[in-house]
């Protein structure tokens, strides 16, 4: 059964020059127009099955937040249908209902009731909320004396303990320090594990890959793609890079090998890439500690002032584990001429990565580390397998671990 069904949803914003014009429109009804129109969403359809978590990505202004507001019944759709089942709780902004003059305790009570909890529920949850926030000592002080980190911690604690059937989160988590973000992620993962349906808007591709079962890419108020988070992230990033340079575009998929994503402005073409052992044989199974060489060869089809060759290594969830390129490693390339071929070799001992499949995405770009355009990028083409001697706990194991244990007799 679906927790949320959205069919052919469209939302047209009416832009009024003044708030008063909005009122005149209410009175005039359909007889006159005091507004300009703008479709924020059009033909949006998707389902979120109960217990699944659904992520939405897209550039600023693509309609993500509007979509959440429609799903939360804050904004009425102009066309289409929203059908939802279960109790929704919206976290459109962390601490939106907080009043800085009130104490922490008062804000917790007020916000929990704003989020729809009844008095007995709040009384039961209160100790838990305070414990999660780790602000026991500050609960009787006005929130205005809190640091921003403390404020956010309290706000999230309240929201996370509401236990709705469907949780709607709008980038509320892109705040606070790393430790806090980690706790948020953990809490959301726990909620997800306990069967809460989650609708999440985020800019963080890693969060999307890690937290969502399914994802949607929204652009200009239209759905571009609904697929696995991994695929959505790949295609979205491809689009982001591609739209940085609109001179020449190649298709998103590689015409020679269907199914492989390839993009760039076409001023260079990757001709050969792979990971080799030192005797020159191509490898797919890699042993930690052994030295390998990633080779990337590109042919330049136009003059490029600041060429860069490099690659990215990602895990099966689509998370970037590490990347390297000649520039960042301190070996800049001088300008490349049209027709010239350049080969970059990256030699390094294979780190002790957990045993699974990884992908290598080779790339040629031009510019600087901070600001570059993609000439040619082949996404996750080469699949390699890490073969550690023993099971790696977590993503990787640091090298040269020394463990000592001491025993003191009783």
């Amino acid at each position, binding site marked *: 059964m679906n927790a949320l069904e959205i069919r052919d949803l469209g939302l047209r*914003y*009416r832009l*009024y020059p003044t*708030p*008063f014009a*909005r*009122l005149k429109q*209410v009175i005039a009804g359909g007889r006159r127009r005091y507004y300009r129109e703008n479709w924020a969403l059009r033909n949006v359809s998707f389902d979120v099955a109960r217990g699944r978590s659904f992520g939405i990505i897209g550039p600023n202004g693509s309609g993500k937040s509007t979509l959440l*507001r*429609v799903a*939360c*019944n*804050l*904004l*009425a*759709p*102009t*066309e*289409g*249908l*929203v*059908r*939802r*089942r*279960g*109790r*929704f*709780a*919206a976290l*459109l*902004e962390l601490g*939106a*209902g907080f*009043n800085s*003059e*009130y104490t922490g305790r*008062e804000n917790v*009570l*007020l916000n929990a*009731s*704003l*989020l*729809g909890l*009844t*008095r007995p529920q*709040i009384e039961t949850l209160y100790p838990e909320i305070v414990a999660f926030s780790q602000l026991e000592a500050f609960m009787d002080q*006005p929130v205005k004396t809190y640091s921003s980190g403390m404020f956010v911690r309290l706000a999230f604690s309240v929201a996370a303990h509401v236990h709705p*059937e469907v949780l709607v989160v709008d980038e509320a988590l892109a705040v606070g320090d790393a430790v806090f973000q980690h706790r948020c992620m953990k809490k959301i993962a726990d909620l997800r594990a306990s069967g809460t349906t989650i609708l999440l808007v985020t800019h963080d591709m890693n969060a999307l890959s890690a937290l969502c079962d399914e994802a949607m890419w929204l652009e200009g108020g239209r759905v571009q793609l609904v697929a696995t988070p991994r695929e959505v992230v790949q295609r979205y990033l491809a689009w982001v890079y591609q739209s940085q340079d609109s001179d020449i575009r190649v298709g998103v998929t590689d015409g020679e090998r269907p199914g492989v994503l390839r993009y760039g402005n076409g001023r260079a073409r990757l001709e050969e890439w792979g990971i080799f052992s030192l005797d020159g044989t191509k490898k797919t199974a890699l042993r930690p500690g052994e030295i390998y060489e990633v080779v990337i060869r590109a042919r330049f089809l136009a003059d490029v002032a600041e060429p860069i060759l490099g690659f990215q290594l990602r895990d099966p969830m689509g998370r970037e584990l590490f990347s390297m390129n000649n520039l960042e490693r301190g070996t800049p390339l001088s300008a490349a001429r049209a027709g010239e071929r350049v080969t970059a070799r990256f030699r390094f001992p294979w780190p002790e990565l957990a045993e699974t499949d990884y992908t290598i995405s080779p790339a040629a770009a031009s510019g600087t580390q901070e600001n570059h355009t993609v000439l040619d990028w082949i996404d996750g083409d080469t699949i390699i397998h890490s073969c550690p001697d023993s099971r790696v706990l977590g993503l990787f194991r640091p090298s040269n671990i020394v463990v000592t244990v001491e025993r003191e007799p009783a």
Partner: protein
Amino acid sequence: MPTPEADVLEIVPNQIDVPSLGRFWRTLSDNRYLLWQLAVREFLGPFRGSFLGALWAWIYPMVLLTVYAFVFSFVFKMRWGGPTTGGFSGYALVLFASFIPFNFLSTVLQRSTSIIVSQGNLVSKVVFPLEILPASVVLSALLQMAVTTAILLVAAPLLIGSSPLGFAFAVPVLVLHVFFTTGLAFFLTSLSVFVRDIGNLVGIALQVLFFLTPITYPESAFPTRFRWVVDLNTLATVVRLWREAILFGKMPDGASLGGFAVVAVAVFAVGYWWFHRTRKAFIEVL
């Protein structure tokens, strides 16, 4: 946990949600804790962190009342007349009683013109029934009124020997006054979102209303050629019925009470309907 089909919510364009008293009541009762939280905060908010705290809620009207009583009684030589209320303390008491319904109206209307704009974050970022906001303003003013009325109920029997039973006659007037005020509050709450000048306008209108209502002077002092001003002024009726009931134990006359009932219910209905009609647009202009 399976959710019953009744839990399904369908949102389609141009949904008309029919406002009804029953629905309004259910919303209030479903959210009573939130309503209470908001009302108490609203009531105590201005005194937060001050040394005397909630005492200020009474100091302010008491000082004002004393000044009015002094000025009108000694400077303007105003008297109510009558055997029990002829003196200064009688004048002050009647004034105090008359202030109560006016203060209630004034507090609610002033605050309702800023509640949505000042709580804009709640409106656009938190999902909750918006009628709670004006309702919390009314409830917090009711809290304040409860305090002043309690003082009156103790002072009136002591000073002029009024019967405490008069309060029973005042209750229907009070209930209708709450409906009347709530209706106006709904209307102004919504209007102030679109027309920000409403706040200032209401401030001036309340000043005018204060002096055009027989609060500091008896109704009989109003010049006969302007008599219609009092007749048209619903608040004048409220003040008259209220003080007659609570001070002199007089049952409200049917015509006045009936007339007020019609006005109060109509104002409430129109105000609530208007609020419902416009609430979806709040988020667009905030």
